[in-house]
């Protein structure tokens, strides 16, 4: 397990010198900031018409979750592709490190980076708490943040897995993006069209329902947690297997 941490630490530090990571962080924080500002503006302007309904944090976390669909492919595409290109994959694969530890370390490094960006957005619930009397719904904040964290962790795991399969960065980016778009939007359509249990299956696979309709709305349920944890396991397993297969080629 220590190896995972050592690799994650190196990966995490790497983000702070990588331009793409800054672009991602900047775009996420800018967009989320604008959305927050608009929300607060409308709240202060129209407080009387809102029938006591205070703004909540779900607009910030909701936007953050959506932005992850677009930004995580950009940061995971290079995770293993870069190592392969620079020849350092050979270094890591001949060091006393298990394949799983390598993949999990890469994942954890990216996860810590997203958590860092997410930590910056914690100023918004704090500001909101000051604006609203008698304070905002703490449970919703926790649930919504947990939701974003799980979405990020799942996307990162899938992204790492895909980057291990495709060493070409451009291919990894577009395939990751397609899978995210599929999980986030497309898979919801069959759920609406189909009937009965088939519809239920697609509904369960739809990430939006687990995020927007559940965690981001303040409800923490086991089925949603299982969904995200399964995706994390799937991504890391795919990555580990891909690294193993690469050895045998």
């Amino acid at each position: 397990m220590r190896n995972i941490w050592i690799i994650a630490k190196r990966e995490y530090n790497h983000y702070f010198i990588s331009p793409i990571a800054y672009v991602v962080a900047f775009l996420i924080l800018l967009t989320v900031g604008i959305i927050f500002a608009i929300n607060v503006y409308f709240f202060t302007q129209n407080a009387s018409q809102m029938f006591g309904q205070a703004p909540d944090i779900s607009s910030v976390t909701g936007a953050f979750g959506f932005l992850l669909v677009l930004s995580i492919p950009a940061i995971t595409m290079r995770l293993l592709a870069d190592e392969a290109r620079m020849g350092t994959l050979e270094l890591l694969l001949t060091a006393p490190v298990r394949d799983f530890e390598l993949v999990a370390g890469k994942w954890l490094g990216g996860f810590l980076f997203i958590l860092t960006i997410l930590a910056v957005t914690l100023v918004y619930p704090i500001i909101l708490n000051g604006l609203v009397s008698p304070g905002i719904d703490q449970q919703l904040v926790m649930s919504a943040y947990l939701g974003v964290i799980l979405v990020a962790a799942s996307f990162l795991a899938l992204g790492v897995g895909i980057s291990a399969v495709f060493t070409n960065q451009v291919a990894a980016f577009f395939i990751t993006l397609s899978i995210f778009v599929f999980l986030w939007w497309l898979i919801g359509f069959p759920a609406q069209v189909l009937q009965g249990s088939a519809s239920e299956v697609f509904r369960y696979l739809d990430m939006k329902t687990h995020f927007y309709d559940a965690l981001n709305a303040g409800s923490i349920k086991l089925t949603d947690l299982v969904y995200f944890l399964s995706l994390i396991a799937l991504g890391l397993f795919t990555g580990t297997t891909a690294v193993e297969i690469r050895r045998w080629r």
Partner: protein
Amino acid sequence: MIQVNGLTKDYGARRAIDNISFDAEQGEIVGFLGPNGAGKTTTMRILTGYMPPSDGTATVAGYDILEESLEVRKRVGYLPETVPLYNDMTALEYLKFMADLRRIPDAEERAYETLEGVNLKERANSYIGTFSKGMRQRIGLAQALIHRPEVLILDEPTIGLDPAQVVEMRNVIREIGKDRTVLLSTHILSEAQQICDRVLIINKGKIVTEDTPENLQARLVGAQRVILRVRGDSDGLGNKISKVKGVRTVEAKSDGSVEFEFGAGEDARPQVAKAIIQAGYELLEMRPVGLSLEEIFLELTRDTAAGKKVS
């Protein structure tokens, strides 16, 4: 230290190495010599646990490369042909990272020590991206040495270095090879001759021959070649020489000298000398032309059958 038994690796339909077997003892520097694409890197990658073989077994430092890969990797230092460096890290950070992965206590101290060993201590805090080719090679070697491995595997360690750096690198390798096992690959024959205790010549995935550099040269010089020069006109000289018993081939050179070859153990020189003096030529020079390692190498790698003949 290294025992290799019938190692075979197929890449799809192409057989990269074919039934390779050899041993390397502690304190021995073994050179892998062969043209590009002979299978040197593949063999090394299998021994370092980077990829599994298609067939055959090998043990490194007493551990099976397939069953106990992690144990092998703990005990092997490996410098791949493409030096695996993170350009965005400083030399010290990089070595500390590797030391951490290898569970070395006092990683920072060990990183400094190792940097000193490869003469890079004053560049400890420079980014690797700014390093010259020679420095990159040295930091790559430092990475392979940081855990003081029992076995060191170096893939083309001197490639791309300038002559002074080559000498320096060879000295470092010789020093390490005193008490540890070193397996290195090269396609430069004189290098193998200079630093290796033993040379394995590999071609098209097979070990063609294996011996000490000295023996190899002696053994392979089965036929001796002699160059002969006379004063004045050398017309008909070749004819005379070819009639002497034991002479295999005669070749008249454009500069008037004649080169001839005789088999080992049937030294024809006295007879040749006698014959040409009796024929009235004035003998100026007769000297052996050693078959260089380059020629031996070409001879051996031209086709594997030629290698079988000498071994």
